[in-house]
């Protein structure tokens, strides 16, 4: 069950490019992303229905799509019925949910906002993204605290393998809130460990089957829950037990950033954690429970210039 990564797009407190994600400093995940670039790309009437979470995800998705096009995918490969969308999130459109709660608490039933309610329904960001991007294949929102990115990728890979879609835009997005900070802090104070953190960031990967045209970043040759069998590549990114690259902090969706950076580095992008343009990278998520995962990514086309594939 393999796939190629044909496009990447990010938006977050670290900036708007993979280079900026690679250079991200701890703490940047608390900063809001710069969404100014949406203004030229989306009509104002459409922006009206998009909360900050949706705008952030949309910006990353637009960048991913433009990147894929720049790397050889045709328009028809990134819009229409044969393109599916999977959006993974730990907390979903949190601020809109709280806006809705505010409307109920402040004004009671007569003042509860139906717009805030419907936009807080967790599939709405994905639906609005699909509408905005002109994508009308299968659309799935994954919402859980335990590595929603893994199952989003598994689902996307299955859809590609069975021909349900020719391209899957897989996104991961989370936003932060002082309210959630408070709640998670209370749980930690009560002795709970292994709780996720927060971020204000989104990443999109454009996936195609391994025979993809154009210039893919990387191929994923192994994707599984838990550790992968056998020996893996020497270059490893580990996330869990407090470890992990900054950019997305310790948010439930942080593994997406690792995968994006691995693809970036495999393609020759500068990344201190993955120096010297590796041939293959293993991305591990090691927290116990349903979030444990391994992905092994390789330069497209298998071993090159005599390097060991692994």
């Amino acid at each position, binding site marked *: 069950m393999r796939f190629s990564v044909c496009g990447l797009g990010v938006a977050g407190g670290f900036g708007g490019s993979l280079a900026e994600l690679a250079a991200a400093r701890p703490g940047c995940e608390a900063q809001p992303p710069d969404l100014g670039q949406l203004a030229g790309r989306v009509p*104002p*009437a459409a*922006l*009206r*229905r998009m909360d900050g979470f949706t705008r952030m995800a949309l910006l990353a998705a637009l960048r991913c799509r433009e990147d894929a096009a720049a790397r050889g995918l045709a328009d028809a490969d990134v819009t229409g019925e044969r393109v599916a969308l999977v959006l993974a999130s730990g907390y979903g459109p949190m601020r809109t949910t709280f806006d809705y709660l505010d409307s109920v608490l402040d*004004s009671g039933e*007569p*003042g*509860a*906002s*139906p*717009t805030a309610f*419907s936009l807080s329904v967790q599939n709405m960001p994905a639906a609005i993204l699909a509408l905005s991007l002109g994508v009308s294949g299968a659309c799935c929102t994954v919402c859980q605290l335990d590595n929603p990115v893994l199952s989003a990728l598994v689902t996307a890979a299955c859809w590609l393998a069975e021909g349900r879609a020719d391209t899957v835009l897989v996104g991961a997005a989370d936003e932060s809130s002082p309210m959630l900070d408070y709640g998670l802090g209370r749980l930690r104070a009560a002795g709970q460990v292994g709780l996720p953190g927060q971020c204000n960031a989104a990443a999109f990967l454009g996936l195609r089957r391994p025979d993809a045209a154009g210039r893919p970043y990387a191929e994923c040759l192994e994707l599984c829950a838990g550790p992968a069998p056998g020996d893996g590549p020497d270059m490893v990114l580990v996330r869990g037990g407090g470890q992990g690259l900054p950019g997305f902090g310790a948010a439930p969706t942080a593994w997406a950033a690792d995968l994006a950076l691995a693809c970036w580095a495999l393609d020759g992008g500068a990344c201190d954690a993955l120096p010297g343009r590796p041939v293959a990278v293993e991305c591990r998520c090691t927290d116990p429970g349903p979030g444990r995962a391994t992905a092994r990514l390789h330069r497209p086309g298998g071993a090159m210039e005599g390097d060991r594939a692994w």
Partner: protein
Amino acid sequence: MPLTDEIKEILVADLHLEHVRPGDIADQDPLFEEGLGLDSLDAVEIVVIVQKRFGVEIRDLDEGREALASVAALADFIERRRRGA
């Protein structure tokens, strides 16, 4: 401020019509489809706004259709309701 002007200000603010100025909305302009181009989600939001801001209830969407045809129609509806009609 005349009721029609008040309604226009409230609509622009509460529906987040960032690209519209209240003064640009004509009293008789259709609110839905053409004119301001609001949709069914805006319709139910306006029902809540009218209740919250003016204390007047629109009971169902049949009643709503007439009341929400334009700013003038809405002002008229609110005034009639306030008079107890």
